[in-house]
């Protein structure tokens, strides 16, 4: 019970946290691109580029602020709810977290402060460097946390000490872990997709309203130009990550395909009716021959070992127990991600074609579709983490520690209920506020005022950067 509650809490708070993180990483990069364009282009179209930079910069800040406070919750939660886990793995897992703080968080937060308040204070070149450091810091922090997470998926670079606890003995292994390398690229591309879809949707909204069409045409084009390569490479990288996981966590991928029996070659089912852990023979709809072999093994007729055999092998290896994660979640999170990703790839191609023809700002249907598409990255990101984290169950660290043994022995169900209710309440309020603020800023449009928000003019600030400052 206590363990389940702690899991619910971690799932809720981390999924919520990761709604904001990819927006931050993606938008920071896009804002940095915009400001660079302004910096290099001050003669023609300068002021307008500066205004869109600041406009999207404000949206960035709202998300950074929520990303930071919800991230702090995540860091405390390891110790608060998962003390047995923290004690067991801190030697390996704590390192990347501390590196994240020292190398990335300080960078991000300090230069964000300098960027927000430095518009009129810093030389233009230095000010531009600030936003690039923010963007770099955001990507760097994702790197450390992904290295830590990948270690839970595929532990490397450690030995078991005399207490049977993992001890780091090769730090490079953490950062050359194949799960990490592909997982990190996957997350960065997902962030670029998310950021560019957010920017595209907002630009589309204004283009439809015919407000500041020149400025928002430029941002729409920029977002399409970032989106297209990001989503195309992402399809390849996602696929590759599936292969890697099939090597190290075969149960995860077999569950994602609801593949109970061994197969060779293996077909991919587009949909199924029924299914789940208690239904090994769901009605499969649209079977595509060989596709699962290709996805899971990278070969035309590769073999995929079914869940039933994997379960037997794990019992032989680790003792009695259920080693199969929730198959329903695996199967559908995989498909939600893949199908929505394909739709977004089509949208990006459509957009690129319109950019090529120079009619992107006038295509009513494309703008409508772009606006609707803003929901998809959040659904895909969540599905991706569900696939990864649920697929590792019952393990918290694959093969080393089970989730059931990882929560804090001294923390009671009541404690977790209290904190769960507090977090959910606050997160709902934060989410509502974030949405209202985003819509308010988005609706208000570009700030005609040229002056930067300045700490020294509190009485006259209208576009005071959001939340954290």
């Amino acid at each position, binding site marked *: 019970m206590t363990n389940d509650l702690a899991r619910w809490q971690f799932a809720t708070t981390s999924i919520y946290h990761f709604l904001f993180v990819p927006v931050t990483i993606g938008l920071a990069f896009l804002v940095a691109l915009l400001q660079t364009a302004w910096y290099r282009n001050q003669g023609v179209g300068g002021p307008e580029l500066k205004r869109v930079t600041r406009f999207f910069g404000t949206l960035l800040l709202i998300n950074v*602020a929520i990303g*930071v*406070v919800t991230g*702090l*919750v995540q*860091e*405390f939660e*390891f*110790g*608060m*709810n998962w*003390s*047995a886990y*923290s*004690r*067991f793995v*801190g*030697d390996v897992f*704590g*390192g990347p*977290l*501390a590196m994240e*703080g*020292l*190398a990335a*968080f*300080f*960078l991000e*937060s*300090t*230069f*964000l*402060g*300098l960027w927000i*308040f*430095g518009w009129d204070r*810093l030389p233009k070149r230095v000010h531009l460097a600030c936003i690039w450091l923010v963007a770099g810091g955001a990507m760097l922090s994702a790197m450390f946390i992904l290295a830590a997470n990948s270690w839970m998926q595929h532990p490397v670079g450690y030995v078991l000490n005399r207490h049977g606890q993992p*001890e*780091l*003995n090769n*730090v490079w292994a953490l950062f050359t872990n194949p799960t990490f390398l592909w997982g990190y690229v996957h997350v960065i591309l997902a962030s670029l997709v998310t950021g560019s879809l957010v920017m595209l949707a907002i630009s589309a909204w204004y283009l439809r309203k015919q407000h500041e069409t020149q400025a928002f045409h430029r941002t729409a084009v920029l977002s399409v130009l970032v989106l297209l390569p990001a989503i195309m490479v992402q399809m390849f990288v996602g696929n590759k990550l599936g292969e890697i996981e099939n090597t190290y966590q075969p149960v995860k991928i077999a569950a994602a395909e609801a593949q109970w029996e061994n197969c060779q070659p293996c077909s991919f089912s587009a949909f199924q009716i029924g299914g789940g852990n208690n239904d090994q023979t769901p009605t499969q709809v649209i079977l595509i021959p060989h596709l699962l072999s290709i996805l899971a093994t990278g070969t035309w007729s590769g073999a995929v070992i079914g869940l039933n055999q994997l379960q037997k092998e794990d019992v032989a290896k680790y003792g009695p127990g259920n080693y199969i994660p929730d198959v329903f979640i695996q199967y559908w999170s995989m498909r939600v991600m893949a199908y929505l990703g394909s739709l977004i790839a089509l949208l990006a191609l459509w957009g690129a074609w319109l950019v090529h023809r120079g009619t992107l700002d006038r295509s009513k249907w494309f703008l409508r579709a772009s606006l609707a598409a803003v929901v998809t990255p959040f659904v895909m990101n969540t599905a991706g983490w569900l696939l990864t984290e649920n697929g590792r169950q019952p393990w918290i660290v694959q093969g080393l520690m089970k989730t059931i043994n990882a929560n*804090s*022995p*001294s*923390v009671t169900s009541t404690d977790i209920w209290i*904190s769960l209710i*507090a977090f959910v309440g*606050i997160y709902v309020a*934060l989410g509502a506020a974030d949405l209202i603020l985003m819509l308010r800023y988005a609706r208000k449009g570009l700030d005609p005022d040229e002056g930067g928000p*300045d*700490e*020294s*003019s*509190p*009485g*006259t600030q209208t576009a*005071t950067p959001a*939340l*954290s*400052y």
Partner: protein
Amino acid sequence: MHLHTVWFVIVSIFWIGFFVLEGFDFGVGMLHTIVGRTDDERKLALSTIGPWWDGNEVWLIVAGAGMFAAFPGWYATMFSALYLALLLVLVSLMARGVAFEFKDKSEDLRWRATWRWAMTIGCLLIPLLLGIGLGDLLNGLPINSSHEFTGNFFDLLTPYGLWTGLTLLALCLLHGATFLKLRTTDLVRERARAVARPLGWAAIAFVVGWVVWTRSVAGGPDVPQPVEILAVLAAIFAARLAMTDHDGPAFASSAVAIAATIGSVFIDLYPNVMVSSTSAAYNLTVNNSASGNYALTVMTVVAVIFFPLVLIYQGWSFHVFRGRLKSPAQADRPVAGQPAAPPA
């Protein structure tokens, strides 16, 4: 020196840095309704910490993460033991962050008052609760042989822990007042000076009481240790200088007072990291809660590379926004070249 000890020092420095930097943010948050009577004045008071408070908060993150990496046992026991206290800290951190943005988003008076309270109470609870937690490390909490906390929330409210929390609260208030004096002019600055008088006396009283009490809790010699004497002297200096126009030295003194107080908690703690009130045999120590040598070596290299960089660019950000903020009625630009550079 063994790497445990090096990391114990590093973790202490993170906590000291957090309280010295975020301490004035808390102070400003608590005092902004006192030094600011109008919306513009309150906004000005909060603007003094605008570019910095988020970066200052990162010191708390690295303090926690540093403990996780170097002393997993300490991190695990402390964070699960202080469960509800840390929940309140997190809630306060979020309330305060949101308040920064929301307070000006509506003209409604009740709306504004609500967020002012969120800001004030958030800034009050965080140093108080963290102070209680740090005091408890030294005072001792019920911890069993497997290093698990066996008490409940009310066991955290030890008299010594509470006194430590109140001492830090008083120091943060004084630190906030000296900081406000340093960064403002005229009316707001005068009010900061006025409020610094009672705050100064309170801080001195709490620090002196805390030093006496610590001597009996920590064991060892009955005479105050050098760092404790430094804490008392710095508090006295800060209180005295806050009455004068020496804004820089006053701020430096309150910074030293906080640093010395937190520093002496850790000095008295060593080589323990958490004292068990159940049995001294169950104490968590730098030795029995630390990571292995390899992990500590790696983390030391990382700290040696990145920590100086952090100090340089955070220091630079303090330098960039060093000017005083004029009261709203007078001007909307800070005066360049004012002698007002808070140390990083």
